[in-house]
């Protein structure tokens, strides 16, 4: 009795501290994919900013781009992980330090002494066979790798400031199939990390990475891996078979999902949501498509490379008793190689340092007549860039340039993306990691939109105007990233809600993307607009919002100020939920159009924009799905 009254008193004294529930979760913005000078390629691209500089940048300080200008965030980030390439971690800076043994190696002196751009290209080329594990390795010094890894961990620990700014420990596992079929993923740790990262030099098969993560988890060090650039994987990222070509089974699906709860949907090297060839009825599918395998001109197969397709295949595999290896949530990141992500179209520096430092190099600004003459004289397409840049592993033939006078490089198809969002209890390593694990995450193409989604039975439309909306939604439903158990004869309700970025354009529409598998094992998809700017309602037949007449002047980049929404909210009930059909639902929130970075580049250089590049962009946010499970 006494204890109970004491408890009651305590509850009354500290109601907030005791009652803090999921409704108090905050949307935190961050970066989960960033390279510093400790990555072999970043150093060669001219980056000299280390992890400390990267964290200072995330906290709002200005740091320098390799070509000299200042880079600064519009609004500081809440969290960040430095994720350098594990293979050859810190080795290139060591090769440039003449006190190390490795600096005496022929490849090292070649790199160091290369004075011209093309000599640097040759020197970088000389290093590639070592990184690709194609030669006997006398260049790798694991003592350097381990001590660099220790430096990275210490930098994260120095900058980690619980409650204010979270610095997570992480690295990139840069694997591939036999040539350049990208299978890269970032490994993020909940807290501390082991003494040595697991790199592709140990095994190129991601299953071995997951087993290593399992074993490290058993020692108390939890981690997740986040794959990226599935768009450049030539269909291997979400293939129907394993790395070795074996059929996928339940054990594989569980191993993968235990270790890879999230996938990067958008980053500087394009967006991997959906390819327009796969979803011809999705008017918004042709968005920031990067069609090549990474670091090549080889086209990347669409099948198995894009996320919506992967979700559908996952449901099909589940129906066939193989488990669902593609039940992942969504997040975005930049993948910058200059220690600083470029998130804003109007303040864009791409990602590979000296190689894509300005509009001419990126193909957004027309070359001068002397530069074009050079290409004529030497009869080498992209002659100027070959004479000026240091990119190493470029294989395959570039497509015929549709815009004479402009360079066309792979980075012409890149963009100012993307930003990670997590719904975390607090701004700490543990809270952010746990949010990632439960997939309560979203990704944006750069701007700071926030999005929420709940699904359940009996979620009510009137809650949308109730200040207790979030509390009620958590009590009666499940948030993004979760499973909803299907109820017989009932259709699930959804509450979706998004707010704009005060520093970007207003919102145009909110959509729910649904995919499902029918009784025959066939997969389907359908897109519903559920909230429209200006209070308009979606058309009952087409499920589309009416045009909100927002326009961009591509000569000044001014956009309509009087149309678009500061926030959009909707209650939606699936009109077509059939018994026994498993489904996924995710939200796509779309901004009014604004100028793309390439248009900003052209305006600043006072030239016409490259006619082969999109002039405008409709920035967007994607939530993790909710899965309806029977």
């Amino acid at each position: 009795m006494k204890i109970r009254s004491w408890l009651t008193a305590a509850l009354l004294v500290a109601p907030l501290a005791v009652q803090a529930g999921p409704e108090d979760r905050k949307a935190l913005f961050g970066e989960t994919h960033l390279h510093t000078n400790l990555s072999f390629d970043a150093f060669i691209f001219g980056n000299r900013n280390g992890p400390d500089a990267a964290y200072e940048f995330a906290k709002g300080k200005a740091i320098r781009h390799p070509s000299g200008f200042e880079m600064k965030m519009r609004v500081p980030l809440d969290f960040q992980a430095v994720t350098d390439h594990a293979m050859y971690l810190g080795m290139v800076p060591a090769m440039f330090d003449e006190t190390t043994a490795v600096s005496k190696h022929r490849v090292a002196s070649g790199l160091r002494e290369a004075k011209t751009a093309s000599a640097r290209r040759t020197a970088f080329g000389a290093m590639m066979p070592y990184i690709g594990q194609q030669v006997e390795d006398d260049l790798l010094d694991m003592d350097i790798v381990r001590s660099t890894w220790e430096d990275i961990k210490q930098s994260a620990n120095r900058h980690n400031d619980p409650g204010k700014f979270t610095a997570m420990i992480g690295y990139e596992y840069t694997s591939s199939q036999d040539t350049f079929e990208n299978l890269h993923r970032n490994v993020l740790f909940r807290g501390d990390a082991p003494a040595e990262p697991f790199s592709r030099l140990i095994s190129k098969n991601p299953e071995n990475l997951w087993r290593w993560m399992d074993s490290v988890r058993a020692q108390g060090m939890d981690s997740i891996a986040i794959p990226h650039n599935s768009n450049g994987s030539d269909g291997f990222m979400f293939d129907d078979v394993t790395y070795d070509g074996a059929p996928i089974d339940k054990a594989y699906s569980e191993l993968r999902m235990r270790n890879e709860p999230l996938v990067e949907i958008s980053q500087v090297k394009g967006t991997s949501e959906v390819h327009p060839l796969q979803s011809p009825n999705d008017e918004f599918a042709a968005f920031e498509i990067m069609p090549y395998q990474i670091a090549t001109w080889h086209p990347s197969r669409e099948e198995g490379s894009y996320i919506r397709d992967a979700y559908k295949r996952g449901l099909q595999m589940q129906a066939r008793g193989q488990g669902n290896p593609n039940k992942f949530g969504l997040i975005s990141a930049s993948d910058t190689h200059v220690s600083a992500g470029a998130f804003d179209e109007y303040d864009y520096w791409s990602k590979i340092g000296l190689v894509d430092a300005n509009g001419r190099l990126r193909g957004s600004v027309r070359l001068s007549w002397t530069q074009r003459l050079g290409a004529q004289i030497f009869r080498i397409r992209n002659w100027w860039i070959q004479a000026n840049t240091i990119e190493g592993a470029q294989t395959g033939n570039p497509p015929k340039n549709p815009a004479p006078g402009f360079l066309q490089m792979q980075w012409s198809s890149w963009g100012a993306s993307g930003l990670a969002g997590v719904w975390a209890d607090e701004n700490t390593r543990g809270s952010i990691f746990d949010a990632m694990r439960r997939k309560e995450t979203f990704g944006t193409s750069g701007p700071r939109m926030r999005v929420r989604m709940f699904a359940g039975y009996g979620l009510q439309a009137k809650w949308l105007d109730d200040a207790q909306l979030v509390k009620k939604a958590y009590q009666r439903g499940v948030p993004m990233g979760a499973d909803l158990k299907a109820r017989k004869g009932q259709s699930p309700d959804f509450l979706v809600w998004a707010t704009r970025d005060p520093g970007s354009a207003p919102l145009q529409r909110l959509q729910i993307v649904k995919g499902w598998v029918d009784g025959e094992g066939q997969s389907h998809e359908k897109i519903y607009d559920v909230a429209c700017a200006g209070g308009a309602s979606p058309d009952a037949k087409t499920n589309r919002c009416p045009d909100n007449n927002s326009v961009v002047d591509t000569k000044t980049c001014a956009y309509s100020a009087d149309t678009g929404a500061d926030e959009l909210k909707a209650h939606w009930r699936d009109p077509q939920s059939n018994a026994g059909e498993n489904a996924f639902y995710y939200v796509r929130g779309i901004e009014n159009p604004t100028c793309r970075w390439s248009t900003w580049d052209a305006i600043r250089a006072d030239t016409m924009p490259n006619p082969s590049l999109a002039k405008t962009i409709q920035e967007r946010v994607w939530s993790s799905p909710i899965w309806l499970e029977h």
Partner: protein
Amino acid sequence: MKQKWVSLLRDRLVWFVALGLGLFAIDYASGKRLESRILIDLPLVEKLVAQWEGQTKRRPSAQELDALVEGYIREEILVREAKRLGLDDEDVIIRRRLAQKVEFFLDENNPPELPDEAGLQQWFEKNRASYDTPAKLTWRHIYASDEAQARDLLRQVRNGQITGGQAEDWRALGQPFMLNRAYTRQDQLEMGQIMGADFAATLFDAKTATPAKGWVGPVRSAYGWHLVAVDTRYETQAARFLTIADKVAKDWANEQGRLAKLEAWRELRASYDIELVPVEEK
């Protein structure tokens, strides 16, 4: 006539001039050859071979060696042609690299000796504004997506219709808001980044909101309209020299370095004449 030519040939002065012209011609011709000459010497070939070995782990065959040398010749010719066309001059990256190197020299000033404590403190007083902790607010808000609704809410709150008695009652008012309903110790910059700069400027204006005033507004943000209550206002906190003397010393040294660089730059700038070409009126 012929004899005149013969006598000319006998003239030593003529021979002297002819010889001079001949030498000049030879010099001219060989000079031109030097410009288009590419030297392939042993050290260069050794370097090419070493690079090759670095990649392949073996000596090049005679054929491969030929290709290596031919590749070097090709690169050298292309570079020289590029220079002849003046392409290096137009190249942004080359220009920037050169400029950076000189910037680097400008940076290389010896750090001046620190002043004594009194001197340092004097410098601190002059710059104290940048060490002060900025004013901060602990505040709450009620959100409404349109102004009329916000005014209506304000009326109800002021009439005491909705104060209830429970401290957290206000959280049930207005419309749901995706960001926080309450913020603790937030400075103007942080508030501006979240809610919009105008909103922050209004709230930090002491006339708008004070703890005594209770709910005020509505104030427009990037998302809509808000009733705002400031619970605590933390005025700007003056920094104390003794607690941050180390940081002040570091900043002082950085500042001197910056001034020295600026001075070096001014001298350099002064040694050039900058002419502005006027635009012709049409």
